[in-house]
């Protein structure tokens, strides 16, 4: 029950910038997902919000109170650590109980709450074990239970499902979202998994090299990418990015021509999602490079010049390699990016 404001926060390690000039407003009760490649500063951001790392610049406000230099124990934040951080000498039961004891929750409530949290992560049968006697996925769920056993102002979850199998991950995902809606706790969630990000987030923050690339709803991030990084990061397979030149309303690259707005000129990058490419037509003249049937769809890779273009083809599409193929784009879903990688938008 708290909003979080990050105002120009920055974290330097000597000369290296881990997080740079980051400003973000996280609304009360919002589910915010941080998404980005390894080393982009997600964990560092979380640790600054938790109070475990002092920012080298900027301000952090939680629930209207300036918290920049307040110690972690005095912020009402619960965190799931990327490395689990279970207390090795305590049983899982005691691990989950620890935050309740520390935060002065009446002892009479402990047992019920611990069991409830353990049941949520399907660990009810393992409460007597020490962390050393659990599998990686079980440890991760224990860490999750320890975080959700109390109702803090903010949840911080650093890849809490990374080590689970697909089925368990899916069911945990639903549980987390349900619980967050029920408890109405502002949540910041880190993941590498796009599906997780798309399904859980109210808003997604895409980060790269310590800087925010784009903030938006999953829809906005997917259908309105701000730059080539976001475009190439989201979607699987991600958007095709084709470098070429544009003039007089036409984009040209080796083997590719496409219509473009008049205001797009010079060296530009065309972005088009695989699902907006279709076999046939006249935008691409290339050769079949590979065909990958996945069951519900077939991915076709077309070589145009030296560029490989991914196409989401019909399920029954089959072809030999090295035969000529033509592709057309859905003209309503073409994106153009300038030389700096930023989206070129019409006069606005």
């Amino acid at each position, binding site marked *: 029950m708290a909003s979080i404001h990050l105002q120009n926060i920055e974290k330097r390690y000597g000369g290296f910038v881990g997080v740079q000039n980051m400003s973000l407003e996280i609304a009360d009760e919002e589910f915010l997902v941080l998404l980005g490649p390894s080393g982009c500063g997600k964990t560092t951001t979380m640790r600054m919000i*938790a109070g*475990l790392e002092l920012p080298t610049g900027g301000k952090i406000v939680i629930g209207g109170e300036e918290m920049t230099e307040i*110690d972690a124990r005095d912020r009402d934040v619960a965190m799931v650590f990327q*490395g*689990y*951080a*279970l207390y090795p*000498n305590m049983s899982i039961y005691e691990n989950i109980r620890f935050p309740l004891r520390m935060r002065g929750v009446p002892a009479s409530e402990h047992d019920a709450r611990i069991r409830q949290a353990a049941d949520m992560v399907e660990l009810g049968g393992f409460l007597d074990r020490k962390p050393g006697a659990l599998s990686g996925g079980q440890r991760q769920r224990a860490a999750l239970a320890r975080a959700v056993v109390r109702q803090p102002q903010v949840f911080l979850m650093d890849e809490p499902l990374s080590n689970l199998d697909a089925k368990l991950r899916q069911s945990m995902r639903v549980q987390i979202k349900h619980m967050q809606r029920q408890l109405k706790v502002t949540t910041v969630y880190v993941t590498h998994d796009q599906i997780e990000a798309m399904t859980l987030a109210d808003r997604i923050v895409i980060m790269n090299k310590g800087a925010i690339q784009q903030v938006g709803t999953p829809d906005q991030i997917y259908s309105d990418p701000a730059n080539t990084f976001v475009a190439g990061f989201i979607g699987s397979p991600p958007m095709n990015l084709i470098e070429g030149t544009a003039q007089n309303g036409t984009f040209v690259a080796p083997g590719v021509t496409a219509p473009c707005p008049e205001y797009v000129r010079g060296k530009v990058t065309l972005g088009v999602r695989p699902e907006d490419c279709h076999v046939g037509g006249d935008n691409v003249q290339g050769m079949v490079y590979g065909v990958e049937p996945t069951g519900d769809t077939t991915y076709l890779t077309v070589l145009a010049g030296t560029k490989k273009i991914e196409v989401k083809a019909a399920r029954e599409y089959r072809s030999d390699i090295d035969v000529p193929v033509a592709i057309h784009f859905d003209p309503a879903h073409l994106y153009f990016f300038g030389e700096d990688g930023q989206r070129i938008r019409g006069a606005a």
Partner: protein
Amino acid sequence: MAKARKSRGESMLVRYLVLGGWAAVCLLPILWFLSIGFRPRTEVITPQPIYWPTFSLDAWHLLMSDWPIAQYLRNSVIAVAGSVVIDLVLAIPAAYALARYEFKGREDIGFYILSTRMMAPAIVAVPIFFLFKTLGLLDSVWALMLIYAAINLSLVTWIIRSYMLDIPKELEDAARTDGAGDLTILREIIVPACLPGIITAAVIAAIFAINEFLFTLLIASTSNAYTMSVALANFTGGSDGIIYNAIALVSFIAFVPILILVILIQKHLSRGLTMGAVKG
């Protein structure tokens, strides 16, 4: 397959032979002591070796009647145990600060603490004597307790610190976000996680303290403060000349507590430290 197994069996046999031989060489002096301690005085010094000596409790009876061994043992135990407790109480927080807190000169202080251990003890013998004389603590087990604690403090701190450095920092971060303060973290997270290190350090300190000789000789002048180590050195067996079998027996008795400590430490030295704390 059969051949591989056989050669493996052979190599195990060779291993046991070599190790067994080495163990026999190491244990021989101890067995020798035992054998001398439990034979009559007349069979100790003879021109011919006696392979099958007569069993005798003469030396044992002599010790029990003539020599305040219980008093010496008591002094040893009080001084050593007390010093270890003092060491742990001081070293655990110090080690934690040296392992975790960021402050200027941290590494230097760490090294300085260890370096006190490198000094030759004889250098401080005279000042220490006068110090304790002024304090009125000469010939007292309490003085020995303090001295043993001082001698071992640096080593104990250093050992515990090295164990603490191995504890993942995320554990403390988790405890802090869960709402724990420094002392709670130390008591509930750090100490249990480095318990094997603490036990190891305590046993090593105890062994050093039991064997301490120079300062004990300096401080202790009567059986008020004589510990096993000094009493042993002063022991000749009594008024009728040097009684070797009694000396051997006393030596063996002095050796037993150390043996027990070493057996204790072995179990803990090989234990994993932070099993299951982190990923992987």
